[in-house]
């Protein structure tokens, strides 16, 4: 299992490094969205709940871009067939793809969050960086798992580019609620409030439920 997961992850990361398909697009998308928000909201800076909302909507939309691409090479270049004939557990593909998506999200956030802080955010986020990272990490795990599931559902269809967003957005609403509520007190102008543990618990619950769910149903998506 570990051997297969590492082979799959390394393969995907190598392709991404070589072609640069997903991460640069996601990053550009995020920064353009920040600019768009600046004009649409007509604000020089945002803080509090508004800042949290802008940040999370942008990150979640950017994640949707990667979900649609996640399994394209497997379907179009025969990766599924090659994987399915190998003597490895099919869950390895779920774990590997979720890990790859997680890597993409982290890579995008490493650049997008500083960009957000520079372009749009009023209060300085550096003081609350550890708490912010905790929220980002918990939310990313959930988005990665759900995104893998949605990507695998979407790749079965002929209209992947339509199905993936309309499936992913409602499924990610709990993440949006919890992550934005958890981030909001960190980004207030008057000085950061505490990190609300309740919302971290919701995020953790979300990760757990969808993790187990994906583990239970993923095999069936590969089974012709």
């Amino acid at each position, binding site marked *: 299992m570990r051997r297969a997961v590492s*082979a799959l992850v390394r*393969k995907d990361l190598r392709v991404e490094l*070589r072609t640069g398909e997903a991460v640069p697009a996601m990053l550009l998308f995020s920064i353009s969205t920040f600019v768009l928000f600046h004009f649409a909201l007509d604000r020089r800076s945002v803080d509090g709940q508004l800042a949290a909302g802008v940040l999370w909507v942008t990150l979640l939309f950017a994640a949707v871009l990667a979900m649609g691409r996640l399994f394209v090479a497997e379907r179009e*270049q*025969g990766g599924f067939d090659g994987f399915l004939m190998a*003597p490895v557990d099919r869950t390895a593909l779920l774990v590997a793809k979720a890990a790859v998506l997680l890597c993409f999200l982290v890579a995008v956030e490493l650049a997008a969050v500083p960009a957000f802080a520079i372009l749009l955010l009023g209060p300085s986020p550096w003081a609350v960086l550890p708490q912010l990272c905790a929220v980002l990490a918990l939310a990313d795990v959930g988005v990665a798992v759900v995104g893998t599931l949605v990507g695998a559902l979407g790749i079965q269809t002929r209209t992947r580019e339509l199905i993936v967003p309309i499936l992913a957005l409602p499924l990610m609403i709990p993440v949006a609620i919890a992550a934005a509520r958890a981030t909001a007190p960190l980004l207030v102008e008057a000085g950061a409030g505490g990190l609300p543990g309740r919302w971290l618990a919701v995020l953790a619950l979300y990760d757990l439920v969808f993790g187990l769910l994906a583990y239970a149903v993923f095999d069936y998506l590969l089974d012709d």
Partner: protein
Amino acid sequence: MSGDEPAVALRDLGRAYGERVALSGVTLTLARGRTLAVFGANGAGKTTLLRVLATLLRPHAGSVSVLGRALPGEGWAVRGRIGLVGHEPLLYRDLTAAENLRFHARLHDVGGGRVDELLGAVGMARRADEPVRALSRGMAQRVAICRALLHAPDLLLLDEPLANLDPGAAGAVAPLIGRDAGLTRVLISHDVDRGLAEADVVLGLRAGRPVLVAEDAAAVSARDVRELYA
């Protein structure tokens, strides 16, 4: 599992895509070390048969046993013991030939030395570090043959393995996948004479039905086979 069990045993195998029947009532046995040649026009169900044997498609009717294991229930037990050369090379276009093979070697838990050995055998050692997208179809086909042979499969499924290969390349892969390699093979071919020469058992399909089943290929004339395409 005893060694004298047939490599492939089909009884009344059927498979449909929705209402369209792709295969029905296929019954045959293939002993180990022998070659089954499958003939039939486009859409006759050859590729479907191959994918069922490769555990990539579930059979819908009848029973299928591959290497002594019943499909689809025991598919896990034969995975890693089957090699497939299909229409598509099943290679990632943005990785090099060697990287593709090393990826599959890791999935199959095979050492990396085997990769270089096989690439050399098909005459691809020099182009091993070029991305697959830069290779010609024939070269990609040679790499695909390496991929199918990496894990020394007990059953080799070949869908027109020599398509796109020039005579030199065909000669290079012949010792690996030809009759002399001594492997159990299922071979799809449109080249009737060459296919018959390779075959021990012959199956002719028309619209998913087995219209020609011969346990002894010598008894089949090229004319009988050509009629399938009429």
